[in-house]
């Protein structure tokens, strides 16, 4: 599904990715974790083509993404901070994204699920953070793409919506999709993730299941395992 080879990225003098290799060839939920500034968002944005790597190659579904944009038809993306053009109405935004992607979509079901009907005719600038995030989720889940990238999907969500979100993620997983998630909420990660991809200093420090992680760090608690991993000598 995703092949990343020897990826380097510098912002000014700040080297964020230093020869990152990643290979995801099956479906499932992959949590991309790491301390702040470890390059999670950079990795995701590189896969999306929003960040142009200095070196290395990325392939999605076997196609190199360099000088290519059509592969993004395969990706649904939920950005970290839901910043939308403020003077658009929710309805218009959804219609616009549909118009831009020209794919079959199922936004009605999602709108109903997250109870967004009352907001459809409101301008995005007037919405609260949580509502914006719901709109964000609708936009990300309404198409049927084999790769789903969720950057901090839980931000601002109320408990009910969080449950809906988890259900949605499971549902997509069951359809055989590959889902990349970043999150700071470890309960959430522990609950949904099949595999952990841990980034440290611009490289993959650990890749494996939660169980493997716990074994490796000799911790019983996932959260402790995560915080301990950085101090554990690597054998990967």
């Amino acid at each position, binding site marked *: 599904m995703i092949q990343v080879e020897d990826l380097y*990225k510098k*912002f000014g003098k700040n080297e964020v990715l230093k020869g990152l290799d990643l290979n995801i060839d099956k479906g499932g939920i992959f949590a991309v974790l790491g301390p702040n500034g470890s390059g999670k968002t950079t990795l995701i*944005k590189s896969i*999306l*083509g*929003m*960040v*142009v790597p200095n070196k290395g190659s990325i392939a999605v579904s076997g196609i190199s993404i360099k000088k290519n*944009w*059509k*592969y*993004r*038809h395969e*990706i649904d*993306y939920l*950005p970290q901070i839901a*910043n*939308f*053009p*403020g*003077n*658009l109405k929710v309805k218009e935004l959804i219609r*616009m*994204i549909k*118009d*831009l*992607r020209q794919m079959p979509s199922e936004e009605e079901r999602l709108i109903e699920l997250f109870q967004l009907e009352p907001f459809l005719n409101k301008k995005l600038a007037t919405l609260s953070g949580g509502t914006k995030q719901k709109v964000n989720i609708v936009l990300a889940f309404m198409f049927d793409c084999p790769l789903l990238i969720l950057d901090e999907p839980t931000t601002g969500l109320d408990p009910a919506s969080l449950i809906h979100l988890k259900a949605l993620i499971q549902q997509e997983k069951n359809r055989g999709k590959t889902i990349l998630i970043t999150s700071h909420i470890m309960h959430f990660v522990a609950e949904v993730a099949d595999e952990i991809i841990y980034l440290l200093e611009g490289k993959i420090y650990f890749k494996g299941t939660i169980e493997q992680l716990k074994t490796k760090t000799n911790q019983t608690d996932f959260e402790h395992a995560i915080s301990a991993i950085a101090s554990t000598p690597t054998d990967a």
Partner: protein
Amino acid sequence: MLKILKYSFYDLIRSRWSYVYFLFYLLLGFVLLFLNNDVSKAVITLMNIIIVLVPLIGTIFGVMYYYNSKEFTELLLAQPIKRSSIFLGQYLGVAGSLTLSLVLGLGIPFVLYGLFKSDAIFDFSLLLVTGAFLTMIFTALSFNIALSNENRIKGFGYAVLLWLFLAVIYDGLFLMSLIVFKEYPLDSFSLAATMFNPIDLSRTLILLKLDISALLGYTGAVFKQFFGTNQGLIISMLMLTLWTILPIWRLVFKSKKKDF
């Protein structure tokens, strides 16, 4: 690209500022024509305004739109759309809506005044064409500045400085160099210096219509060739086109390399 253009364009057409811009020109056109009742004078006044104001508005609007639509841009970047399409679409949306405001805002009063029967129609069309070119050029320049500066305040500052430089300072330096080196033959130099500033270029284009009598008073052969024949018009138009294409090209080029 057309879709992005469409959305940017609609977005702008609905925004308050486009209306303000449009109404400003509409009002200006009506005041100039119907209070003054003098097409020739109106054209001269308009020229002064177009040369100064259109670049300023294009610059400020361009920078403002770019920074304000950052979210929109990022949303689009994750979509299966070519990068150049996103930026070209947005650019054309801004430049297009500004041009439309200008052309309609000034065009309507002039048409109502009965311009088609007046012999000032050619001067006036030239004015609008020049205004359109200036809008395209300065919006493109401001997009370039915004693209290269993450910091809004810096970007805004640079854009206004660029305008100030091209609208006023450049001519001041130009004049000083002409006076300092007046012992030398300067006609090629002065024409070349004109070419490197789109505002001067547009001004020259309009001078060709309004002040040809004065321009032909100068003795230099290069001047005579330039102003006395169609050469001046053709070269100026070509240069303006080049001035439009180059920043757009850089915009596309830079946007491909930029990280978001």
